[in-house]
């Protein structure tokens, strides 16, 4: 267990989509712009996704009524969730993904070999490989700032205090109070995403006002290892089947060997 369990509470109900956190993250971590500035064509959100150069991304979720006469915007300041059961960490073959003394998930840039397996392990599509470093990149929860007692750059920059940084258990208490308040205010779907039911708990967790899937968050994310036992079981069954079939074809049938040879010469030219 880490010395402290530090994390973030992202209250999407107070986010107004200014992207100050996204800019602060880029500035502090010296992350370059992407090659081209694009319009997605499907949303006012022009970033679209997390990547090697976007460790934080403010998702714009535009909701429309059936006849499109009414519209509503949701914003979610997204990043690595620093999961308690982190799929990326489970699969990494080099131990490049480690848990820090703050209980955050950190990619050791000197160890990573750029095999891309962690990309397949993360259920939230967080990691990408950098063409510059040749290694896996994602939010570090500003590990360098934490080490000198500062809060992450995004949390400091957020003008609405939508991103709060601190000890996970105290943040969870604040979130639970907030959930009650939001429900009383009529947000019947208000819910915390990232309690212990989601991958053992997310150190970076969210207050949502709609179902998780509306924000593109998986309802029930699983560790990639969930499939491993079944997959190995079928592998063994496959080995037995292939082995027995090959054995049947090759075993020496002393009694019928002559017939085999005769047949053989008539068939194989």
């Amino acid at each position, binding site marked *: 267990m880490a010395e402290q369990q530090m994390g973030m509470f992202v209250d999407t109900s107070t986010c107004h989509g200014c992207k100050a956190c996204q800019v602060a993250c880029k500035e502090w971590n010296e992350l370059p712009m992407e090659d081209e500035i694009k319009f*997605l064509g499907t949303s006012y959100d022009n970033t679209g*996704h*997390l*990547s090697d150069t976007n460790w934080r991304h403010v*998702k*714009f979720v535009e*909701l*429309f009524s*059936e006849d499109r006469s009414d519209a*509503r915007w949701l914003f979610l300041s997204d990043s690595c969730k620093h999961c308690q059961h982190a799929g990326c960490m*489970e*699969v*990494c*073959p*080099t*131990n490049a993904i480690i848990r820090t003394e703050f209980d955050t998930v950190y990619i050791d840039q*000197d*160890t*990573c*070999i750029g*095999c*891309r397996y962690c*990309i*397949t*392990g993360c*259920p*939230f*599509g967080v*990691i*990408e490989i950098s063409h510059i470093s*040749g*290694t896996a990149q994602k939010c570090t929860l500003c590990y360098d700032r934490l080490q000198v007692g500062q809060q992450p750059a995004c949390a400091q920059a957020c003008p609405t205090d939508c991103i709060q940084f601190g000890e996970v258990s105290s943040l969870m208490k604040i979130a639970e109070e907030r959930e009650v308040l939001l429900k009383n205010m009529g947000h019947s779907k208000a819910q915390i995403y990232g309690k212990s039911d989601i991958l053992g708990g997310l150190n970076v967790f969210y207050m949502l006002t709609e179902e998780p899937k509306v*924000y*593109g968050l998986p309802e029930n994310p699983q560790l*990639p*290892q969930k*499939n*491993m036992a*079944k*997959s190995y*079981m*079928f*592998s063994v*069954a*496959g080995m037995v*089947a*292939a*082995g027995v*079939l*090959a054995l049947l*074809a*090759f*075993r*020496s049938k002393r009694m019928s060997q002559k017939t*085999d*040879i005769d047949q*053989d010469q008539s*068939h*194989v*030219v």
Partner: protein
Amino acid sequence: MPVNPYDYFTHQVTSPAWHWEIVWYFFFAGIAAGTYITSTIAQLAGSKNDLQGVIRGYLIGFPVILICGILLVTDLDSPTRFLHMLWYPRENIPMFKAHSPMSVGGWVVGLFGAFSFIGFLYALVKMEKIKTPWLVKLTSFFHESAFSKLFLIIGMLCGFYLGTYTGVLANTSQLPGWTASPLLPVLFLASGMSAGMALMLLVTPKKSELNEYKHKLERADKYMVILELVALALFLITLGQWAGKVTTGFYGFLLWVGVVLIGLLLPLLLKWKPNLLGHRTTLVSSLLILVGGYVLRYVVIMGPQSGYFGF
């Protein structure tokens, strides 16, 4: 307000963007495993006459696994650090994670390399290309002494792991088309075995004393093609809603024409009617199986990645 035109779901999962190197690696790993497993089974269970043919099978595994190693390293985004897969530089200890199929796979590729290297030397000794006394002694110790059975069985198990773990690797991911069916390892194994046997048929010379062996190899290959057909059908059924990723569009075309028709049904027909193309039957059916084996991996690796960010 239920309509969300921005489908975040497909943006949420990121594709690892595994490209051609990985497709070729999966294909060659299947062949290396297939030839070694077939050779060991034939040596353990076959007749004395089979050995002449078997030794040619041993010639394939080692060079092919070398190519696999090169492909694996060049595919890394930091290739010069490839040793980190086996050695943890921070603590100077071996790097092994039993719950990461890639970590176990890295070790097995190395181990298989050692087994197939000895098999390779054994073949050269048997073909009288190597006559160095200590090498002759060493290879016959591993392949012909009382201990050889155990050696060959362990080598064969390494081959089996190599032939299946690529499927487990894809199964332990978040890409729906890779995780939906646990039959992926069986499919890869059957295809690797049939491709390996097809290649062994191609390198078996036309000598009458090898006819019995060739006949057995043809029969084994036929069984593997049938196993692959069954595994493919079950794979597609168990893919459920994700089957469309490999059965429709460009990948669907490749699957039905390249894999099912060219790589499985036509070779099966040629194996049932060995006189159909005269003396070229074996050559044609083996080539078709090899093409089908490659296309299968291309479809199964690329299809499920399509449509996700990063690819």
